């Protein structure tokens, strides 16, 4: 494994390969039942973030803003905060209001827990929604930090100690609604009681409505979140999470916990942390863990899915073997992807993330179980650096979000769209990444893209491959 050396360390970011923290937090909060997020800051952030989520999920995404004015930016926004909360209550009557900060409110040092406290005392005696807040300054970290901060905030705020229950917590990380639906199927097939957090499988991929629903249905309820503290065990997907080694936060980051770690420490819920279940090896680990926790064997259906995937690996091996890939996006997703690609013989990979946890290389080694020489890593990267490096590498395929399209267009090679954002293809909500089934779909897509490429570039025009 090699870290890519830059010819020139740029101080500017040229076509970023990351999004900002409140976006991640809002995605997570959308997976809570009856929840309306409020972004505390200027309205532009909320508008941009909604716009981005909507163009990916193609669903209504209501996120309120406290609409800071210039005065508020100087003197603080508590007045606006109070008005905002009251208006949300009147219009949406939500069960939960989830508040994220922005660069602006963090810079002026808004104390959101205090604002919530004040609001509660002004409105004492009224029936209030539950509140939760995540600190999400974007000058520290990426949307993934925001996502995990939000999940952590949820279990911290709502988890309630009590007698242990026969349930499992599953913290899936930032995956697609289809992935979430799949995970629920798996757990149901195992017959395990579970709490999935967050669960935006419905709220960010709604069926058509016969009645207009101001807050979309679905999501993990706060009563369920309360029970996370009483669960028998937690599984969380990821290995980097929100553990960035960010300079100014270094001190606090040392104590940064994931939701699973927090529950383990505070409520003695055994935590199983593992990379995204992508590919056979990583998915086996997930299923073995489920077997261990439930004491039951993997249901036949999933065994057969595994078998079919192995079978497919064999059949299409000649197409993928030795192909050079560029994989970019969120660190934990990349780690999952690389584990899978390494497995199918695509071991010449460049990975790029806009995050800079400093953990990527190490965690990639863990995931592949070795220090493969074919993998090069660009930490804290952006798309322009990626492009400059990619040109020399002669890649066969890109795997990542829609944002890499301009490079693949130039290089004239296929792009497999995964992760977030996907706004130039239909059905981003239904792209699968996880499990034997998700891996199968990804594998088929990759194989077919390579075949199609070969077919189109061939001057003979194959009809059988």
């Amino acid at each position, binding site marked *: 494994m090699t870290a890519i050396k830059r010819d020139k360390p*740029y*101080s*500017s*970011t*040229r*076509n*970023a390969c990351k*999004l*900002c923290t*409140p*976006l991640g937090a809002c995605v997570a909060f959308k997976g809570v039942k009856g929840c309306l997020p*409020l972004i505390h*800051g200027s*309205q*532009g*952030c909320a*508008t*941009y973030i*909604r*716009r*981005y989520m*909507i163009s990916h999920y*193609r*669903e*209504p*995404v209501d*996120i309120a*803003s*406290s*609409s800071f*004015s*210039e*005065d508020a*930016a*100087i003197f603080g926004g508590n007045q606006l*905060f109070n*008005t*905002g*909360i009251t*208006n*949300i209550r*009147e*219009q949406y009557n939500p069960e939960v209001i989830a508040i994220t900060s922005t*660069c*602006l409110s963090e*810079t002026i040092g808004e104390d959101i827990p205090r604002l919530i406290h004040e609001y509660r005392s002004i409105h004492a005696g009224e029936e209030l929604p539950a509140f939760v807040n995540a600190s999400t*300054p*974007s*000058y520290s970290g*990426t949307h993934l930090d925001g996502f995990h901060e939000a999940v952590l905030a949820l279990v911290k705020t709502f988890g309630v100690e009590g007698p242990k229950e026969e349930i499992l917590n599953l913290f899936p990380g930032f995956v697609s609604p289809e992935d979430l639906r799949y995970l629920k199927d798996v757990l149901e097939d195992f017959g395990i009681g579970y709490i999935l957090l967050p669960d935006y499988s419905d709220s960010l991929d*709604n069926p*058509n409505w*016969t*009645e*207009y629903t101001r807050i979309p249905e679905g999501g993990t309820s706060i009563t369920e979140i309360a029970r996370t503290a009483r669960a028998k065990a937690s599984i969380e997907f990821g290995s980097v999470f929100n553990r960035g080694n*960010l*300079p*100014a*936060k270094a001190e606090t980051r040392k104590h940064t916990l994931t939701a699973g770690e927090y529950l383990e420490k505070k409520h003695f819920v055994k935590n199983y942390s593992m990379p995204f279940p992508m590919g056979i090896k990583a998915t086996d680990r997930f299923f073995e863990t489920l077997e261990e926790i439930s004491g039951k064997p993997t249901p036949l259906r999933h065994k057969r899915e595994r078998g079919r995937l192995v079978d497919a690996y064999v059949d299409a091996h000649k197409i993928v073997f030795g192909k050079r890939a560029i994989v970019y996006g969120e660190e934990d997703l990349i780690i999952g992807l690389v584990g899978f690609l390494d497995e199918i013989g695509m071991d010449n990979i460049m990975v790029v993330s*806009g995050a800079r946890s400093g953990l990527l290389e190490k965690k990639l080694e863990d995931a592949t179980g070795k220090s493969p020489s074919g993998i090069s890593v660009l930490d804290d990267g952006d798309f322009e650096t990626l492009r400059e490096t990619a040109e020399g590498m002669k890649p066969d395929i890109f795997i990542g979000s829609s944002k890499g399209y301009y490079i693949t267009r130039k290089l004239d090679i296929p792009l497999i769209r995964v992760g977030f954002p996907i706004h130039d293809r239909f059905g981003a909500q239904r792209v699968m990444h996880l499990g034997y089934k998700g891996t199968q779909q990804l594998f088929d897509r990759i194989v077919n893209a390579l075949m199609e490429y070969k077919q189109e570039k061939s001057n003979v025009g194959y009809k059988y491959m």
Partner: protein
Amino acid sequence: MSKKNKAILPDPSELKEEILSKYPKKVAKKRAGSIVINDPEEHQVQQSNVRTIPGIITQRGCCYAGCKGVVLGPTRDIVNLTHGPIGCGFYSWLTRRNQTDAGADGTNFIPYCFSTDMQDSNIVFGGEKKLAQAIREAYEIFKPHAISIFSTCPVGLIGDDIHTVARTMKKELGINVFGFSCEGYKGVSQSAGHHIANNRIFTDVVGLDDSVRPGKYRINLLGEYNIGGDAFELENYFEEIGITLVSTFSGNSSILDFENSHMVDLNMVMCHRSINYIAEMMEKKYGVPWIKVNFIGAEATAKSLRKIAEYFEDDEMMAKVEKLIRREMQEVTDTLKDVKPRCEGKLAMMFVGGSRAHHYQELFTEIGMQTVSAGYEFAHRDDYEGRKVLGSIKVDADSRNIEELEVEKDEKLFRKDLPEKKAKLEAKGYKFSDYEGMMPDMDKNSLVIDDISHWESEKLIEYYKPAIFCAGIKEKYVIQKYGIPLKQLHSYDYGGPFAGFKGAVNFYKEIDRMVNTRIWKLIPPPWKDQPEIVAKFADAEY
């Protein structure tokens, strides 16, 4: 706009009451002024350009979005650098659909999103050094003609002085470097950003090149952003009628054209909201008059082209205009014959922008559809009520923060002939610097709503059950959950062009497809058991 064939609308007072009843008292009072039951015969005050109420889900974006995204975004040869944390830059990266034709040298920086990507340490210790370094880098990579800097919210607070950095770098690199203090919290919407963009472009760019471009007549087109290729369509018309289009602000534009844009005989203003400032300042400084034009709608296009030819008082040009109109109207008429019977009598509503919600009503009228409700996202009173109210608009704290430039006459370049020409034409009834606003063009009892919220759109839909709703992507999937098609008038749903005659034809077909498709029958609308107050009412007229 022709008023015939339209139903008389019912008085929506009850609807208005119902909408307001859900708001807390103070909020209801505030919103009441933004929701006006139109009477084209009376002059009514439309509250607008006031701060969005926190917690109400708005369509509006921020000042930075208006400055960087809207006005400067479409120019291909300025490297735009966002000074701030990563999100703001990322979200404004290629999100608008302005097209550009990079021409022979291929210079096009639109696909690049440069950001200083501020980190904690920059927030604590200041980001000026990083900014200067980023400018050097952008220069080294592209050797551009100009670099511009856009401030986001935190920058204003930590006190980075982007203008000093710009001046220093201008000296160091020998190219034009200028900055916009367009922090998102300024003003109440994108509109503040438009104004800030206009000001800086006027002081730092316009007037740098005094050469006279070839051609008998020279004009600028202001407030046309080339979404879906609209500007390309119009460029052809100007060429055909023998006019040199010096600069478009800012669809398919180049900074080289901006620099020369004061050397024209006339300014045409499309989007009054985003760009009237430059038109006004150019007139004061260089004597170039401006007229309002509209190229959305076939009739409106014909009218605007004739108006231009009248200005130049050139018979040959007028003949060319007539020939062009005759030729292009053929396809328009043919399409209308096919489309109109299927669309006639249906209801539309549109909430978008600072002028589109007005302009697009023309197209709907042409296919016999009636606009029952409309409003802007970020307009001011003059866009609703007409420029006659300009003197009487109260300046509130939010607008006071946006600088009004003091502009003086340029003694050397001032075109004395143009004001004379203007006076002469005005005496004959020709209208300059004039925009009558949206409200006089709308029907009695239509609802005019500024900065509409989600909640209000819901109520409107239940009441009017329109055949189509026009807005942007943020509203699209909400409205479509009701079984009502939403046409995006920001991105055109990746279609277009919709300007000019060809654009009109495209639009008719598009609306026909949207309102008449069978898919909607699969979605039972939430009100299927309730009577259709307005639609019935309208149908009865035919």
